[in-house]
Structure formats: C-alpha cells, structure tokens
C-alpha cells in the first residue's frame, strides 16, 4: 500500500513536471507546477517529514504558484494577448540545463546525508527548538532579510503611488 502510494505520488510529480516542460501555455504550466509541488509534498509526508510537506503546500503551492499565475494573468490577458511561450535559444538553454543537471546529480550522489534523530510525533517542537538554539543566527538572518524585503516592497509601492 505504502509503495503504491509512493509510486503514485512520483508519477503525479513527473506528470506535473512533464506538463511544465512540454506545454506552451504559461497558465497551464503554472497549474502543472502546483501539481508537481503537491506531489513533492506528498513524498515528504511518505518520508515522515510532515512539517516540510505542510510548509511546501502553504508557501509554494498556496503562495508562490498563485502569485505566479496571478502575475501572468494580470500582464497578458488584460492586454488581450495570448499567453504562449516560444522556444528561443534552444542550444544555449540545452547546454545550461544539462550542465546544471550534471552538477546537481554529481553533488547529490556524493553528498553525505545524515539522518537526524528526532521523534516523529513531536518533530515540530524539536525543529522549533533547534531553530532558536542551534541555528539562531541563520534564523534571525532570514527574518531580517524578509523584513528588509517587506520594507523595500512597501517603499516601492509608496513611490509608485506618489507618481
């Protein structure tokens, strides 16, 4: 049963990714991206990492993809254009993506993954505690970067409003 669900989730993810690559309709690609991200979240659940799965759904599927689709709709449809992507720079694109893929594959195959020893029923508490003790600097730094981004966005919005 477990392995069956796992295969199903992988197929779902691959379907989503395949649609992203082969469709020329950008809006369809955004929907398929959401499908792929939900599939990956499912794989996280199978790997006993609920928190990561929930964060994946909330931030990527529920936040980023929706803003992406929203942006695409705002720009093109309102001007009356068709939302179709072309295929330009095929050679350079192929070279860049192949080298990126091989670099990632090399890194991942050579990486030494450690398994953290945490209680799965209480992982949120443990992750939270480790954020605020062991990884406090990284945590605060990210918070600070987000704050700067927020202030910057508000400032840009205000400038646009003044004109």
């Amino acid at each position, binding site marked *: 049963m477990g392995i069956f669900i796992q295969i199903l989730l992988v197929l779902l993810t691959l379907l989503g990714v395949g649609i992203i690559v082969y469709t020329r309709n950008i*809006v369809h690609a955004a*929907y398929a991206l*959401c499908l792929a991200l939900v599939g990956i979240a499912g794989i996280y659940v199978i790997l006993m990492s609920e*928190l990561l799965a*929930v964060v994946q*759904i909330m931030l990527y599927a*529920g936040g980023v993809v*929706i803003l992406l689709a929203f942006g695409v709709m705002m720009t093109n*449809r309102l001007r009356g254009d068709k939302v179709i992507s072309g295929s330009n720079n095929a050679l350079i694109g192929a070279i860049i993506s192949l080298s990126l893929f091989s670099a990632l594959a090399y890194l991942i195959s050579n990486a030494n993954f450690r398994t953290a020893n945490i209680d799965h029923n209480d992982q949120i508490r443990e992750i939270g505690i480790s954020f605020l003790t062991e990884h406090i600097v990284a945590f605060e730094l990210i918070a600070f970067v987000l704050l700067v981004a927020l202030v910057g966005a508000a400032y840009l919005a205000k400038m646009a409003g003044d004109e």
Partner: protein
Amino acid sequence: MISFVFYLAFLLIFVVFAVYAERKTAAFIQNRLGPMEVGPKGILQTIADLLKMLQKEDIRADAVDLIPFLVAPFIVFAAVFTGYSVLPINEVVGGSGISAGVFFLLAVVSLDVLGILMAGWASNNKYSLYGAMRSVAQIVSYEVPLGISVLCVVIISGTLDLSQMSANQSHGLLSWHIVNHPVLIIPFIIFFIASLAESNRTPFDLPESESELIGGYSTEYSGFRWGMFMLAEYGMMLLLSILGAVMFFGGWSSPIDDFGTGPIWGSIWLLSKALILIFVQMWVRWTLPRLRVDQLMSLSWKYLTPLSIVMLFICALWKLWIIS
C-alpha cells in the same frame, strides 16, 4: 478515516439545510417569510432546487479553456474538504493524527484559491476573471490575520493538534479558551472576520458579488459543476466554524463539567457550537453591506494584521507570565 466519512455525509446534509436556513434567516431579518410552498414551512425547497440543479445541462462555452474549466470546481471542493481530515469529532474519534494539525488545515485550505483562479481564467470572461482576481487578492490578504490569530491560540494551548487542543478544554465552560484566557477574545473576532473573508461570504463577497460581477468566477458554470462551488462555499463556512468552535469554544466538551460527556454528546456539542457560529455568519451576511475593494484591503492590512500582531505579542506575554 471515520471522521472523514462522517464529515462528508454531514456536509452534504448540512448544505441542504444550511441553504434553507440561510433563506429563512434572510427572510426573518427582512420581515419576510422565505420559502413556504414546498413541504411544511418550505423545508423541502432546497431539495427541489437540488433536483432542478442536477438536471441542468452542463454548459461549456466554445471559448473556454476546457480542461481547467472542467477540473476547477473539483479542485476547490477537494481543497476545502481536505481540511476536514484534521478535525476531531469527539474524544474517541479524532482527526488525522498529523502533528502539524491546524497548520496543515490552513495550508490545504489556501489551495482553493488555485481552483477559483483556474475557474475564473478558464471561463474566458472578463467578469469571471475579475471575480477570480478579487478572490485571490482577498484570500491571500486575509490569510495573514487568520494565520496569526490561529497562532495566538496555538501559543496559549501549546499544541497544533486539534484533538489535543479540545482535550485541554474539556473541563466545563470555565476551561474553554475564550473564558479561561480572555486575552483570546480579540483574536477570536479577528479570526471570525478573516474566516468570513476566506469563505467569500458577505460582507466580503466581492469575488461573486451578484450585483456587479453577476456571480464572478462561477458565472459560466451551470448544473452540477456550479453546485460544486456552492458546496465548497458552504463547506468552507462549516470548516472554519468547526475550527473556531474547537479553538475558542472547547470543541466537543460540554459547558457543564460532568454533564453530557461521551462520544455522542461530544459530537452534538461540537456541531451545535459550529452551527451557532454559522448562524452568526448568516446574521452578519444579512446585516452588513458589501465592502469596496479598497476598504477590504485596508481592513486587512491596516487594521486586522497590525492588531493581530499586537495580540500575538500580548498572548506570548500572557503565556509567559499568567499561565506559567
């Protein structure tokens, strides 16, 4: 699994009677009688409407983007209904035991925006697209105060698991969060307002506003697919009301300490608390007029979000000094 099946059946029955209750509430507030003809006091009116709706043709306009158009209603409903998986029914039948609990609920429920966006875009109709745009802007904005007000409760109760949260409040009225920790009254009001906005109910029904957008994203839908949107809207109402009942009003626990315990009483208590909250939602709907888009945004970003952040701070202090 049991809770999932229970809530599916309950939701379907609930929708039939909630539509009737909604029409009757509206009628009584407006000095009218509401449906009176089908069945005694019109109680079978919704069933007649349902039969009519199911027989309608599933219209697909020529210019729609077919696959997203057909799939969108099911995505909206699936997203809303997945949220029910973590809700408990009583002390015996809890929801899915994932530790992220209420966080998971908020995450999957936010996916219904995707279905709404799909419906509005695929309809290839400017009113639908405007409706979908408004809906996304609204739901994304109101998720912030909603999430923070839920966070206040999580801080106070110290758990994300809704079954655990209800179990903490199961010692009579005085142990309910909103009574035991009066600091949660303002987060509850924020939660309630944001839940109205999340389920696209008046006064935040801009995405569908019949009078200007003729139904918004559901304009091009008919028959069963339109019914799915309706089901999802009422499902969202019920979901957030049950969530509110669990987080603030003690979930399945009875108001009197030892009276009415046990699984059956527990589910009755939980559902009746949720239904009272739904009545308040209807009452609000037939009292307040619809907000403008700019008022909607300023309510969320200028008033509710800062207030909820302040309340988060106060709740943290309360947890530090009063509870511990």
